[in-house]
């Protein structure tokens, strides 16, 4: 046995040294003496409630968030929410999760790169707040088996790392993995167009060498840091947030197939990207001011 002080009752491999007969039969439904409400994804409704209490002033006073078409998000059943992604530390994810939980009372699981899990403290808080690593198996389990809402940003870090000069230009939607997952899970994709996140934390400059050295996906210099110093790392500008929920996109294909047509997936993915891009442009046409909407 390894080093360390012996524990009471420890003897070689086992503390079982008297004949102990194990009940071979099932002894009824087991008790479950849990103390916390952390679910199998690491999400805790209590932590979420606390996070919502803290975030509420940011959501309604700082960003003055406005929704359009929130009724298009179903009150039950799985759906994959897909949105455009922007800002060095993107505010779109917490705004969407907070808004839907507040208005619809349904949890939203945010899918993001598993890189988050490797960061101490951040990874744990992220999981408790409803973050899940974006693996197809996870999305399938959430959407199909547990009929939950999952939020995904198909642009990934390509969206958040783009510089301010490229604002509201949606990047490539990955390899269309989100469409394939929605098809396999038999759930609709609900696109959400977000305006405001770009101006909340604009990326002025990117330092790829520093990013590589630190092992980060990107290392931006934001306008917030230039204006506010170190405080700018965590302080977004009070841009007005507007969100528009588009009509759910249903794919008339059977679920649980081993393979789906790659061309169909890419076609649908590009179609959804176009819908979002056009909605964003449409919303920008109506926007008179970055700060007041």
């Amino acid at each position, binding site marked *: 046995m*390894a080093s360390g002080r012996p524990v*009471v009752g420890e003897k070689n491999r086992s503390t*079982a040294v008297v004949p102990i007969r194990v009940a*071979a039969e*099932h002894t009824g439904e087991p008790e479950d003496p849990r*103390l916390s409400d952390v679910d199998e994804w690491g999400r805790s409704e209590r932590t979420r409630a606390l996070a919502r209490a803290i975030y509420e002033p940011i959501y309604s006073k700082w960003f003055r968030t406005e929704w359009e078409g929130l009724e298009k998000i179903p009150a039950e059943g799985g759906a994959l929410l897909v949105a455009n992604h922007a800002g060095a530390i993107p505010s779109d994810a917490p705004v969407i999760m907070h808004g839907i939980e507040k208005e619809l009372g349904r949890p939203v699981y945010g899918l993001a790169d598993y890189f988050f899990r490797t960061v101490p403290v951040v990874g744990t808080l992220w999981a408790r707040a409803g973050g899940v690593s974006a693996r197809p198996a996870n999305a399938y389990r959430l959407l199909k088996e547990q009929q939950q809402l999952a939020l995904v940003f198909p642009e990934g870090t390509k969206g958040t790392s783009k510089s301010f000069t490229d604002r509201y230009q949606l990047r490539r939607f990955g390899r269309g993995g989100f469409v394939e997952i929605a098809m396999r899970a038999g759930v609709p994709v609900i696109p959400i167009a977000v305006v405001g996140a770009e101006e909340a934390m604009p990326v002025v400059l990117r330092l790829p060498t520093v990013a590589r050295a630190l092992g980060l996906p990107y290392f931006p210099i934001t306008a917030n840091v230039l204006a506010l110093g170190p405080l700018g790392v965590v302080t977004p500008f009070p841009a007005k947030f507007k969100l528009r929920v588009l009509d759910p996109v249903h794919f008339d294909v059977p679920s649980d197939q081993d393979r789906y047509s790659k061309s169909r997936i890419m076609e649908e993915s590009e179609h959804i990207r176009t819908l979002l891009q056009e909605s964003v442009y449409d919303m920008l046409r109506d926007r008179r001011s970055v700060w007041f909407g």
Partner: protein
Amino acid sequence: MSRRVLVTGADTFWGGRMIQALETDPSMSVILGMGTGTPSVPFERAEFVRADQTYSIMNRIVKATQVDTILHTFMITNSSSVPRRAMHEINVIGTMNLLAAAGAAGSSVRHIVVKSSTLVYGSAASDPNTFLEDTPRTSPVRNSVERALVEADGLMRDFAEDNPGTRVTVLRFANVLGEHLTTPISRNLARPVCPSIFGFDPLLQFIEEGDVVRALLHVTQAGIPGLFNVAAEGRLPWSEVATICGTRRVPLSPFSPLKIRPLTRLFDLPSELEDLLRYGRGVDTRRFAATGFRYNATSAGAVQSFIRSLRLRRQTGKQPASYTYEHDVEQFFRHSPSVVGGIDA
């Protein structure tokens, strides 16, 4: 139908428990225990054979006894319990000899049950939330116990393919806690302070030790072949496990260059547990549930069962009565013509 069963690791916790459980089943007409040491629990009617750790005499024993079932419990699932070399000898070479004996021409073996571990999935940031039986690992093997288990896993898969006439059952158990078993996790939880990795609070899945025995017995008796994850319902964060056990977590540095070796030594923190305390692990158990097995405890229940029995031991100050295996005495009762009342008399 009467069955003839060979149990490996008869001198270990699991082998001893399995033999005791099998002895209660009258349809198990012959029970043979193989082990490298001496049994730590008394057997009523099982016979004990001593062997070296690679089980090189397996072939002769199987031929001589014509057993139809082999219950392979002698798989090390904890890298701090044996040296690296012995790990390979036991888990890989031992399994190899066992499969060679079972697959020999004219072999009587029809069913092999193997006690494996969910360690074969590893534990990494890139892991899916839940491993199905056919989900591959996402990270390379990082320590001797995982390497040995993965290698043994491959041997069993090949064997099952090459020998369609023999049923192969592999049960991958989650981390076990319970009244009697001592593991690195239970040792850490038994102290006033336990280790954690700073900034990480992973979700863990457990199984109660009695359910491990029941699961192995279930597949052995019913002859169910296949590969199954076996873990209790529910997952709980390490912080909650520590709270249930009334121990305080001491955060260790998450950055490997700053890892303080003496600390990990003090805590009994083998590398597979270090990974687990970072990313945890969850497995899907629906396949095993579909065979009709029902658990007596949930994951949280396993933790509670462990801490309740520890509290009892602490407060009574009593060590369980020890048992010393006397080879000659056991042989006398089993084989002497003078014994007329049977072994149970």
